[in-house]
């Protein structure tokens, strides 16, 4: 049995410690934001934030995550934003993370299968760099992680525009 902290909640899971976090999240905890894309940390579809850093859950073993480390999945982004902004519980329920809002506003996804990782990567970027240039956005999605975040539908242009739009929402705060 292992304890992990996911989206602000301590969760106990009864699976072998070498189980990749991706399968723990999807199959044990029913958190379906992260997707299985390659299992090789080559695409980014499975990304989650661990203490604010984008991590590939497909190659991260359960036993590699300490109980007090904070895992945030796509599902947890609204609460993450609400906490950062000090929103009330009521407000938090009806709020999406600005990155999610921007993704909808810019109609970014096509099939959307990679977009979990894109949104996680955008959140990581904007939390450390609130006003990234296009060059910095490209760098973040291509060379900052263990591999580029890949999109087969070719939505990179829409992602860049959505990151820029999310930056303006985040700058305004709540």
């Amino acid at each position: 049995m292992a304890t992990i902290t996911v989206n602000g909640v301590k969760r106990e899971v009864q699976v072998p410690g070498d189980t990749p976090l991706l399968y723990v999240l999807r199959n044990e905890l029913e958190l379906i934001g992260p997707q299985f894309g390659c299992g090789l940390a080559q695409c980014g579809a499975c990304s989650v934030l661990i203490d604010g850093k984008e991590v590939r859950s497909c190659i991260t073993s359960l036993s590699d995550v300490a109980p007090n480390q904070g895992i945030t999945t796509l599902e947890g982004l609204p609460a993450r934003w609400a906490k950062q902004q000090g929103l009330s519980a009521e407000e938090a329920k009806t709020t999406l993370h600005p990155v999610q809002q921007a993704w909808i506003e810019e109609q970014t996804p096509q099939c959307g299968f990679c977009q979990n990782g894109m949104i996680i990567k955008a959140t990581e970027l904007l939390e450390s760099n609130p006003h990234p240039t296009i060059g910095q956005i490209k760098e973040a999605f291509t060379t900052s992680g263990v591999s580029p975040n890949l999109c087969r539908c070719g939505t990179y242009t829409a992602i860049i525009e959505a990151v820029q739009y999310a930056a303006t929402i985040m700058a305004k705060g709540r």
Partner: protein
Amino acid sequence: MATMSEKPGNIFGATLTRRQFVKTGGVLVVGFSLVGTELLKGDTPKAATMKNSLDPSLPSSWIEIHTDNTILIRTGKTDFGQGSIFTAYRQIVADELGVPFEAITTVVTGDTDRTPDGSGAFDFLGRGTPNIRKVAAYTYQALLDLASERLGVAKDKLSVKDGIVSGGGKSISYGDLVKGQQLKLTIPVKGDLTSIMGLTVEGDPPMKPVSQYSVIGKSFPNSIIASKVAAKETWATDVRPPGMLHARVVHPKTLGSTLVSAGQLDKTKFPNSQVIVKGNLVGVIAPTEWEAIQAAQQVATGTKWTEWKGLPGSAKLYEYLRKEADWTTTSVTKSEATKGNVEPALASSQKKLAATYQLSYMKHAPIGPTMAVADVKLDGTVHIYTHNQNPQELRGEIAMMLRTTPDHVVVHSYPGPGHYGRSNGGNAGAEDEAVILSQAVGKPVRVQWMRADDIQWSTQSAAAFSDVQLAIDEKGKIVAYQVDHYMPPMQDDRPIGAVIAGLPTMPAPDVHNDFITSTVIGISDPWVYAPVPNVMERGHGTFQVGQKASPLAVGLRDHSMRTPVQFQQNFPRELAISEAAALAGADALQFRIDHANEERAIGVLKAVREASGWDTRPSPRPDAVSTGSTLRGRGVSLMFRNGTYWAFVCQIAVTPSTGAIVVEKCTMAVDPGIVMNPAQLKRQVEGGVVMGISNALLEEVTFDESGITQDDWISYPILTMADIPEIKVVLLNNPKIGTYGGGSEAANALAAPAIAAALHDATGKVLRRLPLKPAYVQALLKA
């Protein structure tokens, strides 16, 4: 796939007339589908309705108008990211019915027991008349009939706005109109539900004139995006029926290996796993996904296969295709553009081009490997939960595999990764394997392919080569153009698990099959240079490489991928046209205008010229060299597909020392006739351009004599964000055309010939081979 002709309605024969439409009145309920087929009257051609299917002749199988004025629509098509079902289909129905976009609150897609018409996730706009449009038009007429009766006002004195029928000083909403009422309407349909094309709505109902469109043309958002982004959507990958087991499949060692013996499972390590063998199919099943993965790896190491070497290897591919492939058994096709007599013109002209163009095998490469959950019940009913471009065809294929009838099979559709054509023939890979394994263990089984399975065991876009000859006259005009296109067939719809297991499937592509899976190669790239006096375009077909030699009948299986066949035929043509312009000493864009007479073709070329800031001059550029630091060039391409004209311009930078090409800027001009949804079309075009650049620069399936040698995103790379250009999209709304053309997939085909022309412009050298990989570019420039 042989040819997707530009001629509408030529697949299922004649359409019904307006008179027949009036004559085919039956009695049916809209809103609450309680009336069965026994009430249908008249001689309407209609499909037989089977168990677990909707009756397609009932209007409520397509469109439900509810008493609260909300509307539900159903389509057998599934969404793969284009969003057309959630945007365009709502817009089309809204305009035909005279209701706001928002009134259509529910869209049911793809489930074979909950949607009426089948067919695939392609050609969503149906050359301007998708099934749902005709049904809406029929329903509108029936609603007017009902309102006329109710209000006591002649039908031609009625008008509709926002779902309210008014006339003679009276009015009534659609919701009130359908309360407990019946519509005098049956929907005439024709076709085979579980075939690739599904059912087609027949007849000729009066349609809304374009001048009355108020919803079409506006940028409504795609509703499924919000639920996906908020993690509120159930994807196929999320489906977990009670008692479900996880499985992985150990695929054969080569594309022709048969099973000698399956590896023994180490029960001490994997006490809850089991191995299932069916023919040459080896499945490993476990209660948890991680155990299934590990146990499958362990079983794979002990599994013995026969050796097989029946492929030419990618290094010798074009030599094999040219010299060894059988091009004589399959009949040769000629295009409708063929005219005049090319030979004398080719013989007598001074300026000539004779060249061969080669295109690699490419993977569809969905970002998520294929997966499916199957639940074979004790009574023989099969439920499949998956993400598939043609659920009804899958239903037929699974029924055939199990030697049962399609009414025993239900396919439930969920979102998933884009397939780009790979599953438009009903399977992507895992569906049939899940069924076989579920049947073996009597429980729901989830088969998830790993990345290597998805690259090595899926179908690919076929390789091709084309021989072009053209001649320029003394006025600098093309006087003769001849092309011979050679490629294996593009539509192997056999489910691979069934093939490996030795279970029944449709036949492999052959000369004798129907046109969809035939080895016959038609001309799919409509000729757009009508003033050329002598034209000869021929298509040559052969068998899939390695298939006949494979004891499994597998080999390199091919399947249509975005702009299938036309992609492979447009690249040689458009690069050759750019080369012809260079031969004539003419500007490549103006040269195209000078060889076109279709107003819309000229329109997109002029639009792309203006928007891209194209400077008119011949290619190669005056200072073109093949050495030095960074060289720049530009190129142009043109295409007509599914009612839409496309023109593309790009600027590239090439580094001779490495051979690397970077596309720096590009512009696409699109004239689809009526622009359905500008914002969505812009996004689709941007995506297509990126995929097209990826295809052009990077994508090539490599294989040895036994199978595909790539197995991940490192060995089969696709374009990353760092490598995308600035993309400008120019949408030319052209309502006078009166209809809307296809809007997304074609965008990917324009990049390759324009980039290759830009390389020529920059360096004076032509690489007539895709992809334009650094190693090939480097070799070209050094030569």
